């Protein structure tokens, strides 16, 4: 296999058409994802971070073609999958699986754990299904006793483990993790994160980790992309983003993480004013200028290009050099 990235996304766009009112004929577009580019190497975790409505989940779903992209290209193992016909894409889609935020709704409540995990195995015509299910259950830290239970008879953490086991059943290479821990208790969150980390080490999985929880992101990912209104504002390694944030939005996000030491709290902080603007009516120029404490005239007029600060550390801001 080549050393190229497992997943490469180029200028990905997903617009949802909508009508302004029931009677208007003009169709407008909600630009949920607007020109996102990144690549993920094999065995690497890229975190997509952003507020609600920033388009991070849509990005994940569009990569799996659960939404058809409006524009841009997606490559999987160097092969372009954006225009692949459904039947051909199916084989590749099997290698991309998604783990959902709410584990309960990702499991059919009328099926036993055995049947839930066996469904993809039967589809693949695997033999000795029960043995294989048990193997999968054990690989996610569950045991035989869980096999005949139903989703509502096990805890949220266990449900998420079952969902992971089912995803593993098809031997995927790439997993989209859509806030996989945010519906769980903190103690259980750590267990699931460790499980995901160990699985990655064992099987060299590639993750796209969608989250808004910065402490979780710092723990699990190798690289981080900060999203705002459908655009990536800053992308870099965990160290680059957390130790040397360049974009004002990233800096504000990082400062908004609560600090345990009360003495530190007196330090003056940058606070993000207001709400994220509606993606139905995005601001002109730099999408962040309406809330940016450093905004100048140019910000509302011209959309900034990416500036490479360090190797692989890209920032979308007019004033990167100045702020240094």
């Amino acid at each position, binding site marked *: 296999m080549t050393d190229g990235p497992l997943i490469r996304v180029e200028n990905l766009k997903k617009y949802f058409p909508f009508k302004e009112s029931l009677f208007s004929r003009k169709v407008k577009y909600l630009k949920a994802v607007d020109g996102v580019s990144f690549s993920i190497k094999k065995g690497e975790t890229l975190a997509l971070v952003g507020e609600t409505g920033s388009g991070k989940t849509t990005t994940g779903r569009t990569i799996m073609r*659960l939404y058809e992209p409006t524009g841009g290209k997606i490559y999987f193992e160097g092969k372009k999958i954006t225009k692949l016909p459904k039947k051909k894409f199916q084989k590749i889609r099997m290698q991309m699986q*998604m783990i959902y935020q*709410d584990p309960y709704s*990702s499991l059919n409540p009328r099926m036993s754990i055995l049947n839930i995990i066996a*469904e993809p195995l039967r*589809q693949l015509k695997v033999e000795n299904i029960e043995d294989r299910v048990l193997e999968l259950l054990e690989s996610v830290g569950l045991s035989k006793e869980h096999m005949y239970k139903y989703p509502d008879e096990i805890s949220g953490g266990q449900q998420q483990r079952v969902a992971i086991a089912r995803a593993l059943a098809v031997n995927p290479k790439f997993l989209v993790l859509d806030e996989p821990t945010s519906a769980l208790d903190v103690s259980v969150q750590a267990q699931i994160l460790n499980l995901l980390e160990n699985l990655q080490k064992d099987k060299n999985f590639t993750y796209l980790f969608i989250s808004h929880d910065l402490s979780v992101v710092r723990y699990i990912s190798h690289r981080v992309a900060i999203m705002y209104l459908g655009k990536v504002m800053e992308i870099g390694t965990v160290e680059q983003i957390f130790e040397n944030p360049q974009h004002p939005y990233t800096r504000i996000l990082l400062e908004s993480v609560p600090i345990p030491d009360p003495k530190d709290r007196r330090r003056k902080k940058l606070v993000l004013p207001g709400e994220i603007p509606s993606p139905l009516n995005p601001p002109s120029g730099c999408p962040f200028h309406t809330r940016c404490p450093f905004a100048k005239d140019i910000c509302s007029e011209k959309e900034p290009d990416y500036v490479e600060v360090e190797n692989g550390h890209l920032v979308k801001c007019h004033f990167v050099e100045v702020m240094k």
Partner: protein
Amino acid sequence: MKKDEIIRVLKILIRNKLSLLGIIIILALIITALFAPFIAPYPNQAKGEPNPEEKLQPPSSKHWFGTDYMGRDVLSRVIYGARISLLVAVAVVSLGLLIGVPLGLLAGFKGGVVDAVVMRVTDIFLSFPPLLLALLISVTLGRGLENVIIALAVSWWPWYTRLIRGMAISIKEKPYVEVAKSMGISSWKIIGRHILPNAISPVIVQGTMDMGSAILEASALSFLGLGVQPPTADWGLMVSQGKDYLLNYWWYPTFPGLAIFITVLAFNLVGDVLREILDPRLRRRFL
């Protein structure tokens, strides 16, 4: 597993005493219907044999519910009437489900043109008052029990289609359906394994309650002379024939009327408790 399930259901039933009563009434009705020839004191009169010596006798130890205008034992005829009523209830609802459920699943899951066509057809059926439509079909087809069943089923299925379509639409958006799709499971398997089992509970509840309504409407059609023909014993028909005698011979229409009332009530009570029994999310709470 199975044992736990039975215990859970029993616990629900013990908490819902009225529903338990409903189940007992329905079981009693089924037994009555099955063994009518052995239970009815005058099986021949129930089948229509006149008994002119004992016309319109009030309730007595010989005739517990009195006798009708041809001297036939009302109790025996009410017992035989249970057969017709249960047959109508089961036949109408199953036929309605047989037509309505597949159409609703298809409409909800496929969406688009299929959905639009199916829904407009249900709209046409639902735009008639239900009894009026059944009446219309019944008149067109002619008298007789089979025609009443067909007429009622035809006017009934759109309700199930609507109900299950709504459920199917909400369930097809669930992540587990999305996962199944992404794993290449065929549409038919997704409908059968994921959509139907999760969409069917409210339909079963509705269907159970509808058994009562079907009996009521079949009785109404009989009352209007469209259903079962004399001398067959049928509750609706008996009420119809007895209505002229209500003031002087109250027992004649009252007992078959009571039978209708109690049966309809029982089906409604059972429908209520089924809702709780069928909800998988409530399962753990009672174990």
